[in-house]
Structure formats: structure tokens, C-alpha cells
């Protein structure tokens, strides 16, 4: 959240010569002051521990066992009751974490990587005599991907690659990278005119090295924020695709639980719906708060505080 203090200050002093440390440690300092951000970080940490528990086989392993009657209420055996098939709702809700984290991590990593690479290339070759077609081509590609209705595209890819478990991931990566790409392109254009890059070019450093050593590292703060945002978007999309029957097939996901619950809630059984909703909501809230805090912490316009 923006504090009004910084706005005035930056108009009074161009820079604060007493501000210690490089960008990273200043951001960490600001992050620690941000209560909402720390709350988000705590939620993320708790979910991370739970997810590791699922990965190592300590939690939620009985998600597919129909060990109870249909729609059993909350009990010692079934902490959140059971669903239509008698499966334990708590175990299913917790196991879904694994599904969510897996798709979130894969999609956010790959889409951020793709966005970074193509964004840097486009920004670098912008206005470069003889090579502007690289920029033009990448921009055109982004425009094309952005013009296809999102769910339709994701659903179409998921359907075209039916049966292949990574179809959903591919579809999301293909559409998510454009936002990161545009931001990185703009940043790369800024960095390109900075002195350290000009001097690197002047001494004849190969372009590949300049991009990898000087340009990309200076966009890391944007990439970190974008990766967090893509993580959230991937989980939200996975839930909706699974709900529509185009996502997770042989596992469990909050989207599948919500799909089950649409009939149950009409009959007055809310456990499935509440369990999936709450888990999903808390996870997204944690990551959204964290993304906000990261964005504020790295905001160069507030660097003077």
C-alpha cells in the first residue's frame, strides 16, 4: 500500500544519501514493515509446509478412499465430513494443495522465463537498425495471443491435446507470458540506454552476454512479482478448468470438489463447498498480499524512503 509520505519526500529530496544498502536489502527492509505483506508471507509459508507434507506422503494420502458413508457430518474420523461417495473431504482438500502448487509452480516458472527471454529480446532490438523486425515480430505474437478469448484458448488447447496431462500447463504458459513480456520489454528498453550497458557495448561485449549479465539481472524484481501473480492466476484457472471438466483428470483439485458441490449445495450439504472455497481463498489471499508487498517494496518511485 502506498504511503503518502514518500510522495512528498521525493519532491523535497531527489535522493536520500543516507539510505543504506542495494535494492535488495532496501526491499527486504520495506517488506518487513508491511504488515499485510507479512501476513501474506505467513499464509504462504503455512501452505508451503502443508504441501511439502502432501508431497512426502504424510498428509492427505487417503483422498480417493471411500472410507465412509455418503455426506457424513464432521467427526473425529472425518474432520470435515464426507462427500457423496463417502470420501474424506479434509483429505481431499489438503491433497488438492499438491495439485494447485504443482500447476502454479510449473506455469509461473515457465511463463516468467518465456516472458523474460522474449521481453528482453524485443526491448533490446527495439529501434536497433536492421533488427527491429525481432521487436515487431514478438509484439505481433503477443498481440495475437492477447486477442484470443482466454478460456476459449485454454479450453481449446486442453481439448486439442486431450489425454496429455500437460495440456493445461501448456495453454496457460502460452497465454500468461505476454503480460510479463510487455513489462520486461519496457524495462529492457530503459536499461538499454543506461551507462553500464552503453559501456558494455562500447568495449564490444557480445550481445548475448550483455543481455544475460546486465539486462536480465536488472529485471529480477519485476520477474519476482510477475511470477507471484502468474502463480495465483494459474491456480485460479486450473480450478475453473477442472470444474468445467477440462483440467485435472485422475487426481483431485478444488475445482473438482466445487463441481461435486454444485449438486450437494442444492441438497443442503455445504462441507465440500466450504472446504474447497476456504482453502482456495486463503491460498490466493496469501499470494495476492505477498505480490502486493513485493511490488511496493521494489517500487523505484518510493526508493527515497
Amino acid at each position, binding site marked *: *500500500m*502506498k*504511503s*503518502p*509520505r514518500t*510522495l512528498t519526500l521525493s519532491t523535497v529530496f531527489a535522493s536520500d544519501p543516507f539510505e543504506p544498502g542495494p535494492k535488495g536489502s532496501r526491499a527486504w527492509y520495506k517488506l518487513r514493515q508491511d504488515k*499485510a505483506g507479512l501476513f501474506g508471507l505467513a499464509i504462504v509459508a503455512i501452505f508451503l509446509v502443508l504441501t511439502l507434507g502432501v508431497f512426502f506422503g504424510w498428509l492427505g494420502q487417503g483422498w480417493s478412499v471411500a472410507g465412509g458413508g455418503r455426506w457424513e457430518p464432521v467427526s473425529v474420523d472425518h474432520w470435515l465430513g464426507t462427500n457423496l461417495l463417502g470420501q474424506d473431504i479434509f483429505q481431499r482438500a489438503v491433497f488438492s494443495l499438491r495439485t494447485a502448487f504443482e500447476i502454479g509452480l510449473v506455469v509461473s516458472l515457465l511463463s516468467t522465463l518465456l516472458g523474460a527471454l522474449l521481453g528482453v529480446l524485443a526491448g533490446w532490438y527495439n529501434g536497433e537498425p536492421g533488427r527491429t523486425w525481432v521487436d515487431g515480430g514478438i509484439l*505481433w*505474437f503477443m*498481440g*495475437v*495471443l492477447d*486477442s*484470443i*478469448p*482466454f*478460456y*476459449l*484458448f485454454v*479450453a*481449446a*488447447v486442453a*481439448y*486439442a*491435446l*486431450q489425454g496429455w496431462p500437460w495440456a493445461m500447463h501448456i495453454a496457460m504458459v502460452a497465454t500468461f507470458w505476454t503480460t510479463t513480456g510487455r513489462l520486461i520489454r519496457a524495462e529492457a528498453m530503459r536499461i538499454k540506454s543506461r551507462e553500464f550497458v552503453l559501456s558494455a557495448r562500447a568495449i564490444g561485449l557480445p550481445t548475448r552476454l550483455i543481455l544475460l549479465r546486465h539486462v536480465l539481472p536488472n529485471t529480477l524484481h519485476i520477474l519476482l512479482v510477475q511470477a507471484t501473480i502468474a502463480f*495465483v492466476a494459474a491456480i*485460479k484457472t486450473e*480450478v*475453473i478448468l477442472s*470444474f*468445467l*471438466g*477440462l483440467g485435472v483428470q485422475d487426481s483431485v483439485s478444488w*475445482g473438482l470438489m*466445487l463441481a461435486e*458441490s*454444485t449438486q450437494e*449445495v*442444492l441438497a*443442503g450439504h*455445504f462441507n465440500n*463447498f466450504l472446504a474447497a*472455497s476456504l482453502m*482456495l*481463498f486463503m491460498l*490466493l*489471499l496469501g499470494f*495476492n*498480499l505477498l505480490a*502486493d508487498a513485493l511490488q511496493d517494496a521494489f517500487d523505484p518511485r518510493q526508493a527515497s524512503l
Partner: protein
Amino acid sequence: MLRKIIHGLALILGVTFISFLLMVWFGPDQTYTLIGKHATASQIAEVRHQLGYDQPFTRRYLDYLVELFTLDLGASNSSGEQVSSILKRTLPISLALMLPGFIIGNLLGIVLGLVAAFRRGTWIDRLITGLSVTGMSISFLIIIIALQVLLSTPYGFNLFPVRGWRVDNLSSYLTYVTVPTLSLIMVTLGYNTRFYRAVFVEESSREHIRTARAFGASPATLMGRHVLKNSLVAVSTRIMFSIPLVVVSGSLLIETYFGIPGIGKVSFDAITSGDQPILKAVVGLTAVMFVLIQIVADFVYRLVDPRIA
């Protein structure tokens, strides 16, 4: 202007090419759905010929482009109805369904964004931004299901029909449109408010705002006149470019869930049944819509900002 048109054509070519590749070339094979599993080789060949499967890639792609530009979109594979008549029937339903929520969601977002930006750093700003983040963290699905339970079932207020679309007059329209509209507002409000707040905060930190204050302008004048008019390029961009996405992508989930026969439901059914003529038409026309909006946007920018000539 010529540049715009060339860019637009390049965009349409790209979109149609990708959608053709995904939905038609790699898309599901319709042959057996149409004639069943026990068909003779000649029957199969005939159906494949009717569907155009025996044509080479470039030929089928060019045919698609011609269909798109002549608006002769062919007939649906599953129902045999002309695609153009399907669109004519479903598009008004989708517009009637989505527009109220779209308009109210944006207006509310602008108002809340203005309030938050003007009271930047106070408790009311923190409340609005906090609620926005909360809203962004609630999945579309959760909102739809929760509102349905709350408003349309005996477990809640039981005021509206659970699903469907039997609209023939204003009161039945209001009955069916209320729950989807509320869902759409709730799911977009967080994003809208955040976006507009960021724009207004940026604009209200400009130097000319300080000038206006130094000449005695009131807060209402500052926000309602100077900040708002300077933000119009950003605001109109967001609104215009989200129209196609809301109408097509947004309606897909709402219409599928509430069983409303609009363009989103038709698209979803076409995806799951591999009804290519419909998919090709929807994706292609969306791309055309984007290009048209880009051209309209240029005029709008010139209207709201004298610096853009």
C-alpha cells in the same frame, strides 16, 4: 491509418492461424460422432469430404479466411443450424446478460478508485484496497455458487430462479439477470477498483494538480475534473479492450453454470463436442472485434486527449 489497417490484418491472420491450427488441424475428429462406429470405408470418406478433412492444410485455412470475411460461416456440425443464425440468436442474449454487470462493475470501480485515490493513505483507502485484494482472491466459481445458494435456494433467500433463461419481458429479464450480474460485479470489482485507483493515484500526483490546488480548486473539482479527465485514456482503454473478453470468455463460465443459451454456452458446447464451424467463427470474429476496437480507440483517444493528434 494505413499502418493501423496493416497491423489489424496481421493480427487477424495470426489469431485465425493459431485458432485454425489448434481447433481445426489438431482439433478433435468429427467423423465418428457423425456416422457412428460401424461405417463403411466409403461412408467415412464421404463424411470426411463433407467436413473438408481431405483437403490440404493451406486450402482449408484459406477457405476459413474466405468464410470469415464473407461472413458465410457454414453450418454447425452438431445441429446443422447455420452458424450465422446461431450467432444472431445467442449474441443478444449474452449482451443482455453481461452488459449490466460490466457497466455497473466498471462504474463502481471508478467511484471506489476515485475515493481511495483521493483519501490515499487513510483508513478508507486501506479498507477499499483491502477489500479489493480480498475480492481478487475469491474464485469466480465460489462467488457464483455462494450467490446461487444465498439468493436462489431455500437455504438462503430463495428469491430468484436457480438457473435458466426464460426471458420475455422486463420482469422476467430482471429475475434471470440479477444473480449472474451480481456475480459478475463481485468478480470484477476487485480488479477494476485496483486498476482505477492506481491510475487515479498516478494522475493525482501530477504537478498540474498542485497548481489547481494553489488556485483554490476544491477536492471535488480536483478529482472529478482534473484527475478524471486526465485518466480518460487509461480508463477508456481498459473498458474498450475488455469488452470482447467479457462477452466471450466471461460469458463462458456464467452461461455454462446458469444454463443460459448465449454465446459462451454455445462456445463451450462447441469445444466439448468439437464443433469446428462455431469455434472458428467465434475466435475469428473476436479477433476482428479487437481490430475494430483498436481503430475506434484511436478516435476516442483523440477525443479525450488534445495531445494525441
